[in-house]
């Protein structure tokens, strides 16, 4: 009955364009212009003021061109080739998570692998849940042996620390200057934690395109689907669109941080 009434009313409006026009006339405003795409070639037109270090120290700007300030795009390179992981440095090798709950181990593996450290996911699981054993290795055992596909609230901080890596867990990124500091100036990936629905997930951040407000990520996603490469909107990630919970930043070997006064060079 409702549908019938609606149809009659719609028909009446359709058959009386002049009347309909008079009704709509007051409300007719010009359509909004299409939003333009502002893509700045090569860099930002008006560079932001010098970024503040999280500790409040101003980063001095010399006369030399500062690539982190001058260019809108930065990314740590990807390496998909299956090469010896112990020899990889300065590359992000995308890893899938080898268990359904192992995003913590997969992102840790990618982050430390960037510095040439080989830390397979199964070994991390052994370290945490079956100390002193090799129960969950080789990798195929993760999904078949009870307890290997597991997670815990303190992970992966304890795993970073027990593997000789420095990591800051007390800062949550909220603005672009922090992204630039940790990715471009320190040339290091970081871990981004968020909460889809009621569980936490971790992805690795490896770059950005400031011109279009995008952040480049690697999501370890799934044992079967493999890792996922994507660009996420910055505001959605860091300004409340996504349920951003925390970040693991300033990742580097402990020795490098110690030699630099407690933070990564």
């Amino acid at each position, binding site marked *: 009955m*409702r549908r019938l*009434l*609606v149809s009659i*009313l*719609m028909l*009446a*409006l359709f058959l009386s364009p002049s*009347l309909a026009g*008079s*009704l709509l006339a007051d409300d007719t405003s010009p359509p909004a212009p299409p939003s333009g*795409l502002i*893509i700045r070639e*090569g860099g930002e037109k008006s560079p932001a003021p010098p970024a503040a270090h999280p500790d409040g120290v101003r980063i001095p700007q010399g006369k030399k061109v500062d690539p982190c300030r001058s260019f809108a*795009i930065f*990314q740590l*390179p*990807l390496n998909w080739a299956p090469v010896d992981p112990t020899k990889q440095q300065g590359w992000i090798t995308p890893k899938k*998570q080898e268990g*359904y*709950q*192992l*995003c*913590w181990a997969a992102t840790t593996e990618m982050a430390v692998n960037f510095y040439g450290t080989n830390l397979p996911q199964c070994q991390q699981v052994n370290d945490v849940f079956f100390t002193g054993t090799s129960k969950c290795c080789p990798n195929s055992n993760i*999904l078949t042996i009870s307890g290997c*596909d*597991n*997670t*815990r*609230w*303190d*992970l992966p901080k304890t795993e970073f620390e027990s593997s000789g890596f420095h990591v800051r867990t007390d800062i949550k990124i909220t603005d672009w200057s922090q992204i630039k500091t940790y990715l471009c100036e320190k040339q290091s990936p970081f871990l981004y934690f968020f909460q*889809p*629905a*009621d*569980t*936490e*997930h*971790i992805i690795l951040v490896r*770059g950005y*395109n400031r011109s*279009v407000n*995008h952040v*480049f990520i690697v*999501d370890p*996603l*799934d*044992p*079967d*689907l*493999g*890792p*996922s*490469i*994507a*660009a*996420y*909107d910055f*505001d*959605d990630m860091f300004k409340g*669109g996504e349920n951003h919970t925390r970040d693991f930043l300033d990742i580097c070997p402990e020795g490098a941080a110690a030699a630099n006064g407690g933070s990564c060079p």
Partner: protein
Amino acid sequence: MSIIRNDLGKTSCSVGRLFLLVAGISVYTLVIADYPAIAQKGLEQEAADRGLDLLRVIAQKPTFTQTFQNYGFDSPEQATDLKFGRPLQIYWVRLDRLRQFHSESDAQQLLEPPFEVMYPVKARGEVTSSITVRSSQNQKTWKASRFGAANLIRRLTQFPQYKNSNSSFVVRIPGFNLYFLGDHIKGQFMLTAIANRPKFHWEAGQTLPAQQVFSRLVSAAKARGDGPG
């Protein structure tokens, strides 16, 4: 005489306007207010269109050749003739509600109200990338917020349950990083797995009643640790 005509004209005009005002309110009340999805459809599509315009520019710019991978392309040349495939609405299932699920529960009731739509992006006819638009909490604004995720969208769109259906949608269970293609087949809520899950005894492409899928996940949901995963 002319005065009388004017008076009559004014009167009939007022009645006409009143009639149309009432009609307009009725249409709004009966159609748009009852079906908010209709009112929002345009906004979702607009956000996706803006995202596609952006993708065209970014992926094809020679200066951005090192970034095309992030947007789901193997090369800048691949990013030509971009078109949308049929969009997929995404419904989430929360772990806490899954833990409460039992064999008599209504599987449909586990789905959270959707706020994301994933648009497959076709380059030269092949699905290569995706754009996900998300709404703000009040559902008044939509924004293209995720680009790429090539392996996920390729998998979601490869099955007949996507290709041969106009009604399938995505069901996502973040607690287990699970994605399914959902649909209603002969009145029954069905889920098609897009990835192998030996632990839960299904294979990619297998279609099962949602009731059965959720039932198989309950004990794992109860046993799941409280950390990230």
